[in-house]
């Protein structure tokens, strides 16, 4: 194991991006992700990359639109309200199939809300906050090291699938500092040639990057079918999750990101009390790892969804579980953090209920 250094999640994301060859960053300040533009403003010039502090989040996402069409590995970053402003641009980027990384360091909402961590932008990221049928590859890291590793992968998947990737983090994982091993970048897929790049039409036919499909009348339908085929392919190829003590579990907790860390703490407490609890932690939120949930649902008595929102992630869990077992919920929005104790309580009440029925 190589030497480790102490980094905040936001900083680790930046350094991983630089290591992975990201050479264009455009963003607009917003707490709790300010370390990102600040780090990039310093780091990009060092690697002959470009840092632009945009006049707005909308300008930033559209600068990324242009940078990606120019062939650069590029990214933008913001937090909840700023990500809402990027929705039109995100819809355009998915249609144009331009690879890029978009980071959402989630904070409390709705509205200006507050700057505590939150997971209430799940629907926006996973179902689509923009218009039209599109998908983002959505990653939910739970540690600073994982932020570092997934950020590197994100650029590969973005290029490989020609699709934007979103890192759905939160104010805690972005702000907390942990030891990180700065692994050198190694592509994890064969990267396709970027034959869509606009670099002047020297010695080739002119290229067009566009999202308008007028003629023939069904041109846009055809384009959507093409996108849907790609999405199906991604769903079949990409699905990451972690299982923790699910083997003999009677109750399985479903949680992602920082919430899963707290859940693990609760599970340790519950195990001490002799309650067999496990955890399934999706790492890719889209594609959603349905199989482990479907499988677990067959064996365990109940599931418990814990999320820092009033119930968004739970819909995908329910669709995956397909009514094979009851799904309980523990969650709130607005910057609420679950504690190990609260989760434990919930687990105990679930266990007790079962015991009763058992009699």
């Amino acid at each position: 194991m190589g030497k480790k250094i102490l980094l905040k999640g936001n900083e680790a994301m930046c350094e991983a991006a630089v290591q992975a060859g990201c050479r264009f960053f455009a963003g607009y300040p917003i707490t709790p992700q300010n370390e990102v533009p600040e780090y990039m403003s310093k780091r990009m010039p060092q690697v002959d990359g470009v840092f632009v502090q945009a006049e707005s989040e909308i300008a930033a996402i559209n600068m990324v639109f242009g940078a990606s069409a120019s062939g650069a590995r590029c990214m933008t970053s913001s937090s909840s309200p700023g990500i809402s402003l990027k929705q039109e641009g995100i819809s355009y980027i998915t249609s144009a199939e331009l690879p890029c990384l978009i980071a959402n360091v989630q904070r409390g909402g709705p509205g200006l809300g507050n700057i505590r961590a939150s997971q209430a932008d799940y629907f926006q990221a996973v179902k689509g906050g923009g218009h039209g049928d599109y998908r983002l590859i959505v990653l939910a890291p739970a540690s600073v090291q994982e932020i570092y590793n997934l950020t590197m992968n994100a650029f590969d998947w973005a290029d490989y699938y020609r699709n934007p990737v979103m890192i759905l983090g939160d104010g805690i994982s972005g702000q907390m500092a942990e030891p990180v091993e700065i692994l050198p970048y190694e592509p994890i897929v064969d990267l396709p040639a970027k034959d869509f790049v606009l670099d002047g039409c020297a010695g080739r036919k002119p290229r067009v990057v566009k999202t308008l499909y007028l003629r023939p009348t069904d041109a846009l339908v055809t384009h959507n079918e093409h996108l849907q085929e790609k999405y199906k392919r991604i769903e079949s190829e990409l699905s990451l999750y972690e299982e923790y003590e699910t083997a003999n579990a009677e109750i399985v907790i479903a949680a992602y990101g920082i919430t899963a860390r707290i859940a693990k703490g609760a599970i340790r407490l519950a195990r001490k009390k002799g309650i067999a609890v496990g955890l399934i932690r999706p790492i890719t939120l889209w594609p959603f790892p349905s199989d482990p949930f479907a499988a677990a649902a067959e064996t365990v008595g109940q599931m418990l969804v814990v999320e820092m929102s009033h119930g968004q992630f739970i819909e995908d869990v329910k669709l995956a579980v397909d009514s094979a077992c009851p799904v309980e919920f523990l969650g709130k929005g607005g910057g609420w953090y679950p504690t190990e104790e609260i989760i434990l309580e919930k687990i105990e009440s679930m266990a007790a209920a079962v015991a009763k029925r058992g009699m």
Partner: protein
Amino acid sequence: MDRNETKIIIAGFGGQGIVLIGNVLARAAVIENKNVVGMVSYGAEMRGGTANATVVISEDEIFNPFVACPDMAIILNGPSLDRFEPQIEKAGLVLMNTSMIQRDPVRTDLACIKVDATRIAHEIGNLRVANIISVGAFIEHTSLLSMDSIEQAIADLFSSKNPKLVEVNLKALHAGAEQSQCLQPV
């Protein structure tokens, strides 16, 4: 101290360099190849007020990054003592900057380190090092981290900025170690 995991909270006024203390402890932990999570609980998109930081140090994988009930508390001003004393784990430890805290802990189960940090800083001639003075006292009376790794962490942190800062902070560190006392719970 469950599965040799230690949860620490550091609290004081905005200007007192709370975050730096957390940073020094966390870096020292990394130097000792321990697992560590450091967090700053920033209250709001705004300045001033009281600040606090938390550090969790462990031999094993750290799950929960939050510190609800700290095992140890480094408290640099009165309001923070009022706020955090009740949360400290039973039989835990509290370090108090007596220059800014007029009262003793009410709880009798807590070990208590006392250091007149702000006054000492005054003598050293740099009010801003009161935080490192507290660290010196803290390390002196706990076996959590070695003074060496703290010194290295300080060197790592300041050498880049300005070597002089390393000097004065090391001076502060040792001043704190010497001019502090630890009262075991009565």
